[in-house]
């Protein structure tokens, strides 16, 4: 997209970049909470490395969203100065870390989705989105591998680790359906080869997750209720607390830099 032209696709593209960026940003923030608190030093390093990859993806996407919007906002304004209702991440990524099993279940669900999403988004006609996806897919493959290894180790582990891993899968399952919601933003952009219609990823995701849970001797939950609304800025209760912590320093010292 060249500068200065009014693109009729711009509002949808802004929303789409923001959605992908917010998912990455908020999960990064959650994973960062593990710094110095993980069960072992290698996990401390792994979870914060994953957080860093996601933060890098978020920065590129939010920077792009800001450019498309053209309102003199930058990536920091979008990350630190929006309020809860302006964020459009899915509910899954904002859910609390819980015990280690909960963090791993969230990682398994999200990294599998993000891996499949980025694999498709590499072919986007939008150069920036394709570029973010081409890098992100390599990172998501490592994130997915990490989550899968732990899911199997915990699920097919001791009585206690199995119980915790199953509880985590059950608790987070209702938040997975939202990953595949597609509204007019994705649908319009998908027609032009810009976005991936996430509803097309669902069957493959379910197969992969069912296989993973089977390998881990875990049961696929049969929960019926599902949680939706993140893309419209309607969030779960824990999100406000996350934002308060994430934005505190920036709001206390506006414009401060290193």
């Amino acid at each position, binding site marked *: 997209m060249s500068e200065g032209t009014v693109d009729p696709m711009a509002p949808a593209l802004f929303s789409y970049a923001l959605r992908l960026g917010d998912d990455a940003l908020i999960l990064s923030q959650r994973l960062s909470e593990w710094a110095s608190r993980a069960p072992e030093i290698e996990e401390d390093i792994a979870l914060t490395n994953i957080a860093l990859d*996601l933060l890098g993806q978020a920065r590129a996407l939010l920077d792009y969203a800001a450019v498309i919007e053209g309102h003199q906002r930058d990536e920091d304004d979008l990350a630190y100065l929006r309020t809860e209702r302006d964020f459009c991440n899915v509910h899954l990524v904002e859910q609390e870390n819980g015990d280690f099993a909960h963090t791993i279940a969230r990682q398994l669900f999200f990294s599998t989705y993000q891996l499949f999403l980025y694999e498709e988004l*590499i072919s986007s006609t939008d*150069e920036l989105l394709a570029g973010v996806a081409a890098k992100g897919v*390599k*990172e998501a493959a490592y994130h997915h*591998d990490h989550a899968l*290894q732990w899911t199997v180790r915990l699920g097919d582990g001791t009585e206690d680790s199995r119980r915790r891993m199953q509880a985590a899968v059950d608790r987070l399952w209702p938040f997975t359906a939202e990953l595949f919601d597609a509204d007019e933003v994705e649908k319009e952009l998908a027609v032009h080869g810009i976005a991936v219609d996430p509803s097309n990823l669902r069957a493959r995701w379910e197969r992969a997750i069912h296989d993973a849970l089977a390998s881990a001797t875990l049961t696929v939950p049969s929960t019926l209720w599902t949680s939706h609304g993140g893309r419209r800025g309607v969030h779960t209760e824990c999100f406000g607390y996350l934002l308060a912590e994430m934005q505190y320093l920036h709001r206390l010292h506006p414009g401060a830099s290193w």
Partner: protein
Amino acid sequence: MTIGDLGIVRGVVIDADGRVEVTLTPTYSGCPATEVIRADVLAALSAAGFDDVHVLTVLAPAWTTDWITDAGRRKLADNGIVPPSPAPPARRVDVALSLTLPSRDDEVRCPRCATADTVLVSQFGATACQAMYRCRRCFEPFDRIKPY
């Protein structure tokens, strides 16, 4: 070890007016060294007498460890860091997701005692691009640039 060895420098162009344009690509999306490298490039070119320098950062095509030069691989090995095997394909849509990334099948030799009897401790290490290994013969831990 230079940023050229690592494949981070994608191009340097000097036009007739002496304007220099350097194109860099980040390694991992969140690599914290990206901005330091950018600043160092500007400082180095300024010290070399170039006043009109522009550093561009491009995401595509995505950096891959396959771009690390042979000289770079030797320097990594000389410093006790095992260089990466060829990067896996970015798109694996038709391949069933297995419990193992391609990299796990690699033969990774201990940089101290050269045995292949080593074990992957974690795919995540001191920097975004490194994995942690341990030698089962000499028991030394060591780093490896993971295929990306």
